[in-house]
C-alpha cells in the first residue's frame, strides 16, 4: 500500500512537472509593447483584417502594419486611455516603429503565402489565426527559450490534442489541413 501511494505521488509529481512546470521553464514571457484592442477596431472602426494586414498587388503579405498606417487615423489621440496617449506621443509623432512580437512568426526556413491561401483558396483569417481578430487585449508573447520561436507554433498545451483553429502552427497542422483538402504543395512549396 505504501509502495502504491509512493508510486502515485511520484506519477502525479512527474505529470505536474511535465504539463505545468516544464512549460514554465521552457517559455519566456515577453509583454507586447502596447495594449492593442482588435475588437474595438473591427466594431467601432468598422475595419476588416485586410484594412491593416494587407496583401500587396505583387502578392507579398505586409504582416504587421507600420506606424505610419496607424497614424492615418491616430494622428491625434482617439480616446482617453493611457495606451492611446503613448501610441501618439511615443510612436506616431516621432515616427518610431512598434516592436510587436508576432504570435504566428514561423522559423526562417518556412514560407507561407497569404496570397495563395487568402486570395486564391479564399480561406478566412480565423481558420489559422483563430479569434485573434476579436481579442480585446494584446496577450503576452511566450518565446521558447531553446528555439526562440513563439509558443503559438506549438500550441497552448503540451498535449497536442483537440487543438482549435489558431492553436498550433506546426508543420503537422499545415499538413493535416492540406491532407483534408487534398492539396499537395511538395516540400519546397512551403520551405525555402
Amino acid at each position: 500500500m505504501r509502495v502504491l501511494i509512493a508510486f502515485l505521488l511520484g506519477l502525479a509529481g512527474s505529470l505536474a512537472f511535465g504539463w505545468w512546470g516544464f512549460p514554465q521553464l521552457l517559455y519566456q514571457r515577453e509583454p507586447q509593447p502596447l495594449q492593442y484592442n482588435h475588437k474595438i477596431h473591427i466594431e467601432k472602426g468598422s475595419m476588416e483584417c485586410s484594412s491593416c494586414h494587407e496583401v500587396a498587388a505583387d502578392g507579398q503579405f505586409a504582416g504587421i502594419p507600420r506606424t505610419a498606417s496607424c497614424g492615418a487615423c491616430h494622428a491625434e489621440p482617439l480616446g482617453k486611455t493611457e495606451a492611446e496617449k503613448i501610441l501618439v506621443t511615443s510612436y506616431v509623432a516621432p515616427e518610431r516603429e512598434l516592436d510587436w512580437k508576432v504570435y504566428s512568426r514561423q522559423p526562417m526556413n518556412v514560407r507561407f503565402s497569404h496570397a495563395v491561401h487568402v486570395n486564391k483558396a479564399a480561406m478566412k483569417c480565423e481558420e489559422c489565426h483563430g479569434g485573434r481578430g476579436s481579442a480585446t487585449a494584446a496577450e503576452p508573447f511566450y518565446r521558447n527559450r531553446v528555439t526562440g520561436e513563439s509558443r503559438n507554433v506549438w500550441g497552448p498545451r503540451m498535449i497536442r490534442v483537440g487543438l482549435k483553429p489558431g492553436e498550433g502552427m506546426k508543420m503537422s497542422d499545415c499538413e493535416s489541413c492540406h491532407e483534408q483538402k487534398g492539396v499537395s504543395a511538395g516540400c519546397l512549396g512551403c520551405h525555402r
Partner: protein
Amino acid sequence: MSATQKTSRTPRRYGMVIDLDRCTGCGACVIACAAENNVAPGAARENDRNSISLLRVFTLNNPTAAGRRTAFLPMMCMQCEHETPCVTVCPQQAVELDVLSGIVEQMPQRCLGCRYCMTACPYHARSFNWGDPSWPAGMEATLNPAVAPRMRGVVEKCDFCQSRLHAAQDAAAVNGSLDPGIYTPACVEACPTQAITFGDWNDPEGALAKSGETFAWLEGLGTQPKVRYRSGQNWLHEMAERGGAAPAKEERHG
C-alpha cells in the same frame, strides 16, 4: 502524386538552354547566384572541392583543332528527369523531383549529410556545407530574406531560384491563379550576353521550344537533364558526350 491529390497548377517542366557560343565566361551568373541564394563568402580554407558553388563556369579547351578554341561551360544542377541519380540514392528522401515544376528539390532539414547524392551526381553540381555559413560584419544586411541560409552538415544545390518561383506564385495568386508562369532565375537575369534562356519544356510555343537544336552534357547517361546547351561548334558536342574528358589516345591520333 496520387489520384486523390488535386491541384489547379499547370504541370511545368522548367528548364534552361545555355548558348555556349554566347557565354564569355565573365562569371556574372556565379556572383548573382551566390547573392540571390545567400551563399556565404568562402572561408580561407575553401578551395574548388570544398566550397559552396551552386553554379560554376568551367573552361573548355579544344585539344584537337589546329586553331585552338576555348569555350566556357556554366554548369548548375541539371534537373535530371529520368531516374534522377540524387533522388534515387538519398536515404532520407531529402531530394525529390517536384511533379508540378519538374525541379529537383533539396530539403536541407531532412539531409543527414551522408553526401551520397554528391557521389551519385554525374555533374558534381552539389555542394556540402563543411561549416556554418558566416558573413563579414555588416554584410548580413545584404542577405536575401526570401532564402534561408543552410546549416553545417547538409548538401545544397541549385533549385532554379525557388524563392523567385515563390514570388511569382504569390503574384499569380492575387489574380486567382496558382501557376507561377515563366519567372527569371538570378543567373538568367545577370547574364550580359543573354546566353541563358529559361523556360518550360512543356510549352510548345515557349522560348525553349524555339531554341533550335540542343544537346545535353553526358546525354548518354540517360538522365534526361532539363538544362541543355547549344553551340555551333562540333568539338563542344563531342566533348559533351565525353563529359569534358579529352578524347582517347587512338582517337586523337586517328
